[in-house]
């Protein structure tokens, strides 16, 4: 069986500004991020022959390819389940390129969620099956669905609001170092957190990600081709997707064990393919649409035992210099919420040594996609 281990590399990253409101359309933002990523790599748009995006992406590959002047495209793929798809876009391109189906791949996400409508408000759309069992009872938004799991985690394992604050604070502290972050120079205190308004009790305002306009993209080529690119390659070491048996999406209450989410399934495959384990990860970018996703993911990816995700956050473990620095650009909570794509690009920056919150000599980085939905993850490695 062919191995995908280190067979491909991310050689270019690009992004637009992040803001509550940007004048450009999603298509324009997508093109700007993609062209920036290609320029970063030193690869001409005409060489692009593969695309991967999310099913929720409104800018289809046919439009993007035409706009940027791509060549003939021989591979394209869309991954479902919202934020669960982020790392899988990289995984699909890595697989396609490693098996010779294409040579230059673009993954991207463009979104105007800061100025656009909230999907949960659209009640005219016929929702997928689980909605009939939740929405009539006022379980309306992703925040409500995750808050339900958070309350249960608190009950079973003694996780506290202080643990969730530790997560929000680590992300905010890193954003305070990142001039591109929406929360640059906007510090967070424990008092601000504890006195902020509820969104879905037990989750408060600061437990929720930012609604953002913006786009990001990255370029993937074979490891061989990567040697000739402008930037130091960042190898795609291992990838995985995860849709556990019995899984129901965010409202996972119908699973036998609702607190064991897709991260556990993705992690098993991810580590099986890798040359190293969780203890060897220098820095992690963990999907943080809501703070409780961090303890759930820390457990799922094996950084601690079941139920220990809250306690893991104590003593500055997630901060720079801590046991596992996370979301070093600020994450979805404090840099930008672009369905997790900023976490991928931040992982690349760490392994290039160019992050605004650089972990000294970082050589390995875990990037994860949304926990609570069918998910994906990628392990990145420096040369």
């Amino acid at each position, binding site marked *: 069986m062919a191995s995908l281990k280190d067979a491909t590399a991310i050689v270019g990253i690009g992004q637009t500004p992040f803001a509550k409101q940007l004048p450009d359309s999603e298509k324009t933002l997508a093109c700007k991020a993609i062209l920036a990523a290609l320029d970063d790599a030193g690869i001409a748009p005409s060489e692009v022959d593969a695309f991967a995006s999310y099913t929720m992406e409104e800018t289809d590959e046919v439009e993007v390819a035409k706009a940027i002047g791509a060549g003939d495209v021989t591979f394209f793929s869309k991954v479902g389940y919202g934020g669960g798809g982020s790392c899988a876009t990289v995984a699909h391109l890595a697989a396609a390129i490693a098996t010779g189906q294409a040579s230059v791949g673009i993954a991207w996400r463009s979104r105007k969620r800061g100025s656009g409508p909230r999907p949960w408000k659209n009640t005219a759309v016929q929702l997928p*099956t689980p909605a009939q069992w939740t929405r*009539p*009872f*006022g379980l*309306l938004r992703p925040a409500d669905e995750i808050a339900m799991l958070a*309350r249960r985690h608190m*009950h079973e394992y003694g996780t506290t609001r202080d643990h969730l604050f530790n997560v929000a604070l680590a992300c905010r502290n890193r954003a305070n170092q990142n001039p591109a972050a929406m929360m640059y120079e906007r510090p967070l205190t424990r008092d601000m957190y504890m006195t902020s308004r509820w969104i*879905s009790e037990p989750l408060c305002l600061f437990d929720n990600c930012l609604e953002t306009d913006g786009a990001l993209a990255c370029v993937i080529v074979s490891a061989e081709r990567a040697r000739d690119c402008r930037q130091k390659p960042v190898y795609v070491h291992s990838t995985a997707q995860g849709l556990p048996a019995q899984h129901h999406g965010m409202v996972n*209450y119908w699973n036998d064990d609702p607190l064991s989410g897709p991260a556990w399934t993705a992690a098993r495959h991810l580590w099986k393919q890798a040359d190293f384990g969780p203890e060897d990860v220098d820095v992690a970018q963990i999907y943080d649409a809501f703070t409780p996703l961090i303890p759930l993911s820390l457990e799922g990816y094996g950084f601690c035992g079941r139920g220990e995700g809250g306690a893991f956050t104590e003593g500055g473990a997630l901060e720079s210099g801590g046991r596992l620095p996370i979301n070093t650009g600020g994450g979805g909570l404090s840099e930008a919420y672009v369905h997790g794509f900023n976490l991928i690009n931040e992982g690349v920056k760490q392994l290039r040594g160019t992050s605004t919150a650089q972990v000294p000599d970082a050589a390995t980085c875990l990037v994860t996609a949304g926990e609570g939905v069918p998910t994906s993850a990628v392990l990145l490695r420096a040369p």
Partner: protein
Amino acid sequence: MADAKTKQEPLLTPTVDDDGAPFWEHAARGELRIQSCTACGELRFPPRPCCPHCQSFDSEWRKMSGRGRIWSYVFPHPPLLPAYAAQPGYNAIVVELADAPRIRLVGNLVTAPDAPLNSIAPERLRIGAKVQVAFTTLDDGHTVPRWVLERP
């Protein structure tokens, strides 16, 4: 708080699909019934076309006692859809059924079947609290289950 029932905007009603329709038909008769495999007897929720244990397509709807325990709960706050925002501090709960603890239903804890979603004091909610199903018919004719404390 009982007169806080604002009715300008209706609550969302179930977008019923083929698999779920029997649940709502039984609810309209005041019965809590869960889909069960005719071949192997396993209960399943949400309803599905076939049994994940034995792959049989034959199912029946088994009557439940209607007793359960609160598995978890939340208090959603704005931004919310208008009908829910009109009942500030309302709760949404997950109930695990006494007859089948792995069957968990999302619902609301209320003081009486027709009372508003925020009728019960928030401090009465507790994980593990015993609850009993009750049914209410919404203004548009849909009947949905509600939950009341076994010891009010």
